[in-house]
């Protein structure tokens, strides 16, 4: 939408003034984004896309310039017991010196996004998915990008060890605007872990944009763990493009943040693709997490499965807005979408909006959502077997979360997430 009132422009300009212009992305991308950014305005009060999660909190916050570290010990941010390649982004800047990328097999590139060659496959795809012309936060990320990583797994290559993006925020009220580009070429395969962690307790802001290209018959599995701090503001835009017979799975685990918005956009453009989106948001305190997924079924004969689960304690708010859009061309689509929530406190809330938009008639689409509390019968049953009430509840909560967590196929990562969740809720795992 085009902003007209000067007041709106002032707010926008004030917001933008906090960021430093960058030279991270190629000049053509930045110039293009700059043009869009001039026309785009911050989401209006009644913007349906931002219902339940108004961006006022980020727009009205003040941030500081990043702090520089010569060295930082990253060992405590690794996944314990996991043999992986690691790429570190410190305060939004790629740090090759802190990364562990030696021994990457031939055909696998993990490079600073700043260094991508103009004639490379990267440039061909860079900023083609992020919707910069319409999405103001993508445009901001393009113009003010703090750094980023580009990954390419060449045709037929399989990366055996997971690739772990470690994103660290160490600056009080710091800003990070990373850009990720991952290309899995035909018949390639890889697993990515993306962790967002903060070492400070103040209100930091992350505006991350990730573009993912999954080409024919490629297989990409993505685990995203957000555990910055209870005050962090986190905006995450993922834009995924799937070609025929490709397989993409993403698992989004959000453990804290005072304002977290995950915008996951997937376009399924080739036949016989499989797509799996799962997510868990166990929240407490004053946390607010919004998972906004938009699944575009454009090609026929594809299957998608979506399951998001929330556990809301204290004053926490969970939002789920999932849209499955089946184009007229996408006959024989089989789409399933489910959102389930447990509300543990009367001060917590859940807002959910599972949407189906269907233009093809020969499809099987269903969605469901439930919001509720514990099954009293189940609790009673457990207590009757001698399990204390607290443990009985924990047992059921863990079983509830388990349906999402079991999608993490990397065992050390699963253990780490279990550990994080149990620390948070005092669950017995």
């Amino acid at each position, binding site marked *: 939408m085009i902003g007209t009132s000067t007041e709106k422009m002032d707010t926008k300009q004030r917001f933008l003034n906090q960021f430093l212009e960058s030279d991270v992305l190629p000049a053509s991308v930045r110039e293009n984004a700059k043009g869009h950014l001039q026309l785009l305005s911050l989401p209006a009060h*009644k*913007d*349906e896309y931002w219902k339940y999660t108004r961006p006022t909190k980020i727009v009205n916050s003040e941030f500081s310039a990043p702090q520089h570290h010569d060295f930082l010990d990253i060992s405590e941010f690794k996944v314990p017991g996991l043999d992986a390649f690691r790429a570190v982004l410190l305060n939004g800047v790629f740090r090759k010196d802190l990364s562990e990328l030696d021994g990457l097999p031939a055909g696998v590139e993990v490079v600073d996004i700043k260094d991508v060659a103009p004639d490379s496959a990267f440039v061909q795809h860079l900023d083609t998915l992020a919707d910069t012309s319409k999405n103001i936060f993508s445009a901001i990320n393009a113009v003010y990008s703090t750094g980023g990583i580009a990954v390419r797994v060449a045709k037929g290559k399989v990366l055996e060890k997971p690739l772990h993006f470690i994103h660290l925020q160490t600056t009080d009220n710091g800003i990070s605007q990373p850009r990720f580009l991952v290309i899995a070429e035909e018949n390639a395969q890889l697993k990515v872990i993306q962790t967002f962690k903060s070492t400070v307790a103040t209100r930091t802001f992350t505006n991350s944009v990730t573009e993912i290209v999954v080409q024919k018959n490629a297989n990409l599995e993505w685990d995203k763990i957000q555990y910055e701090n209870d005050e962090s503001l986190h905006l995450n835009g993922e834009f995924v493009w799937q070609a025929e017979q490709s397989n993409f799975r993403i698992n989004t685990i959000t453990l804290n943040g005072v304002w977290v918005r995950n915008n996951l956009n997937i376009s399924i453009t080739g036949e016989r693709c499989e797509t799996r989106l799962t997510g868990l948001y166990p929240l407490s305190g004053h946390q607010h997490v919004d998972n906004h997924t938009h699944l575009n079924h454009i090609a026929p004969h594809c299957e998608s499965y979506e399951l998001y689960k929330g556990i809301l304690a204290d004053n926490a708010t969970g939002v789920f807005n999932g849209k499955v859009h089946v184009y*007229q061309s996408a*006959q024989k689509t089989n789409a399933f979408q489910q959102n389930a*929530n447990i*509300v*543990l*406190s*009367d*001060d*917590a*809330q*859940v*807002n*959910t*909006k*599972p*949407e*189906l*938009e*269907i*233009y*093809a*008639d*020969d*499809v*099987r*689409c*269903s*969605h*469901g*959502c*439930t*919001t*509720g*509390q514990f099954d009293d019968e189940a609790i009673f049953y457990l207590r009757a077997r001698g399990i204390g009430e607290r443990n009985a509840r924990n047992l059921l909560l863990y079983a509830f979360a388990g349906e999402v967590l079991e999608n993490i196929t990397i065992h050390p990562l699963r253990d780490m997430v279990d550990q994080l969740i149990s620390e948070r809720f005092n669950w017995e795992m």
Partner: protein
Amino acid sequence: MSDSDNILDEITSREYQYGFVTNIESEKAPKGLNEDTVRFISAKKEEPEWLLEWRLKAFRTWKTMEEPHHWAHLKYPAIDYQDHYYYAAPKPKKQLNSLDEVDPELRATFEKLGISVDEQKRLSGVAVDFVMDSVSVKTTFKETLAEKGIIFCSFSEAVKEHPELVKKYLGSVVPPTDNYFAALNSAVFSDGSFCYIPKGVRCPMELSTYFRINEANTGQFERTLLIADESSYVSYLEGCTAPIRDENQLHAAVVELIALDHAEIKYSTVQNWYPGDKEGKGGIYNFVTKRGICAGKYSKISWTQVETGSAITWKYPSCILKGDHSEGEFYSVAVTNNRQQADTGTKMIHQGKNTRSVIISKGISAGESNNSYRGLVKVSKNAHGARNFSQCDSLLMGDQCGAHTFPYIECHNSTAKIEHEATTSKIGEDQLFYCNQRGIDTEKAIGLIVNGYCKEVLNQLPMEFAVEAQKLLAISLEGSVG
């Protein structure tokens, strides 16, 4: 082309059966909308000062509001509100004392609709309050109802005869500033129905109103106010048809229901306003605000709607469940064909303890139409033990149409249980073949399957209305094969 393609083709080429114009000289307000229009209407209806002020206040608010375009899944050209007539009354030839005195032409109109007054009166015992354009023509059975203390009259009559009730409840459920179309209605509403069921009274018959838009370019802005006092019960039926017109006609009604302790209101609507032709030309724009409040404990409001008409439908019959243990229900069938667009659903606002709601929505899309369910289930912080179950199914006929589901669920209480399910399906080739093999042709088979698909909703309608609704579904979808 397969058999079912043929059927779909015939369906899409159907003409509206109820398109005819009744030729009665009418008395119109000048075209356009300003404070003078509002004053004209109010003066025409000999309204008290407070009501004029109420209208003007609504009008002034309306002028500051924006038409809601940002969320509904509807596309239509901008409406020129100055290009409509806001008041049209059929000129009464003389004061009517009995049914026999009703204008013969008007009577013929109703006969064409299949609701002959005499037959209604004689056979079904239904009290009918006809609304022809804006003025209530004749109310039957009023005397019978009066014996029980039931008030059932036109809105203008209620303003004169029962001002205290009108003043107390008008705008109490749908405030004049609630939304753009409600504000418009509040400013220019011309007439409608008023109903009051006293304490402990079970209304002995189904109350019924037929609305009809007749005058070209006349927006119809009727207003219904229905109050069920403690421990009373009423079942209210509303049916609508409009003749063929080329320009789109605007319709923005407001319905307010109030159920006090232990009271129950059942409100059923069959809507088949003119949907426009095959190319999407003409048709009614239907922007309706319907809301009921279960104000008292153990009260219940049940909405049932069968929506087959209108070019644009924007309608969300809702329940505010304020009383503890109160119940809200919404049963809906919405059919869209050709270029029709519907964005309809409900809002269930749980405020009281142990409140319950059920939503059953069945959408059927054919032709190049778009049919959206949009519903809100909101459980407030203090609504302990609230329960909701929603089932929203879509049936697609052909691959040029769209079926969409936009449920909003907002839960602020830990003891609430909310369940929502939605499915999408089409009529299967194997189902049609099975019917064919038993001697049932494809058209009839589609009718059978569609009625079966809608059964949960149709079952909620009173018998004679259910039959009419089934016929309407058939008319909207089946076409005349062979």
